[in-house]
């Protein structure tokens, strides 16, 4: 199935948000996730399965003023 992650199209196997982040080596504690433009609370990462057409934004903190 196809999803969009940070503006890029990605073909993935069915997986939870938690599983998707872990697959990328991302520490879920260090990021925030929007699923289809709604904030997804960290407690829901494991129980939320990605669906075809979903759009994810995964952000973190970087240096800034």
């Amino acid at each position: 199935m196809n999803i969009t992650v940070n503006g890029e199209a990605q073909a993935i196997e069915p997986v939870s948000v938690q599983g998707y982040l872990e697959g990328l080596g991302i520490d879920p504690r260090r990021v925030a996730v929007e699923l289809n433009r709604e904030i997804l609370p960290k407690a829901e990462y494991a129980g939320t399965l990605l669906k075809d057409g979903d759009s994810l934004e995964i952000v973190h903190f970087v240096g800034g003023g």
Partner: protein
Amino acid sequence: MPETTDKLVIAGREFNSRLMVGTGKYADYPQMVAALEASGAEIITVAVRRVNISDRNKESLLDHIDLKKYTLLPNTAGCYTADDAIRTCRLAREAGLSDFVKLEVLGDEQTLFPDNQELLKAAEVLVKDGFTVLPYTSDDPIICKRLEDLGCAAVMPLGAPIGSGLGIRNPYNIRIILDTVKVPVIVDAGVGTASDAAIAMELGCHGVLMNTGIAGAQDPIAMAEAMNLAVRAGRLAYRAGRIPMKLHASASSPITGLIK
């Protein structure tokens, strides 16, 4: 009141340092860490950006920051609409688990001046949503008052354009803002060297926020220490109460008892 008990209070939280610093533009993380340490800052700003999903080898900012020591103040830098700024704040809260945000909504890319109409819109929504909002704003007393009335925890007027190093271009407006609002006034942007920071504090500002002034200096770590001292010196001088300015001299030594 000794310096150690002269706390900066924002939304009921006490801070010993009145200098807030950014984490951008450093040559590398060790330099940033050393500069943060030298600055004495307790509040540091960070930006919110997309994770690079194709290159996962890059180090993460938070790997280098002691979260027991620093309060993160996520910013909405790069946002040009209220909606984008609000969305960024909500992501920041989820990532950092804190309600503190430095709200900036920019008007154009050349000046990076705030779009105050969008800023007010975003501030209203965010305050209602439970955020502790510290807005970067023009040095406009009317806008600062509106931001206070909306429930912002501080106001952060610019001294000069972001990254310009031009110093405090309108000290009279800053003074009027200090007379107009009761929330802390923090000069954000424009500080180029230590005397600029001292001037802001001598005017009576409650704090100063800077990034480029330190990170862009030839020796950022030394400049961080200079800013640390300048903010403290300016605050002490403000509290000590300066002498009035006079046009003519006033002798410091007795004018009687001179030898004949």
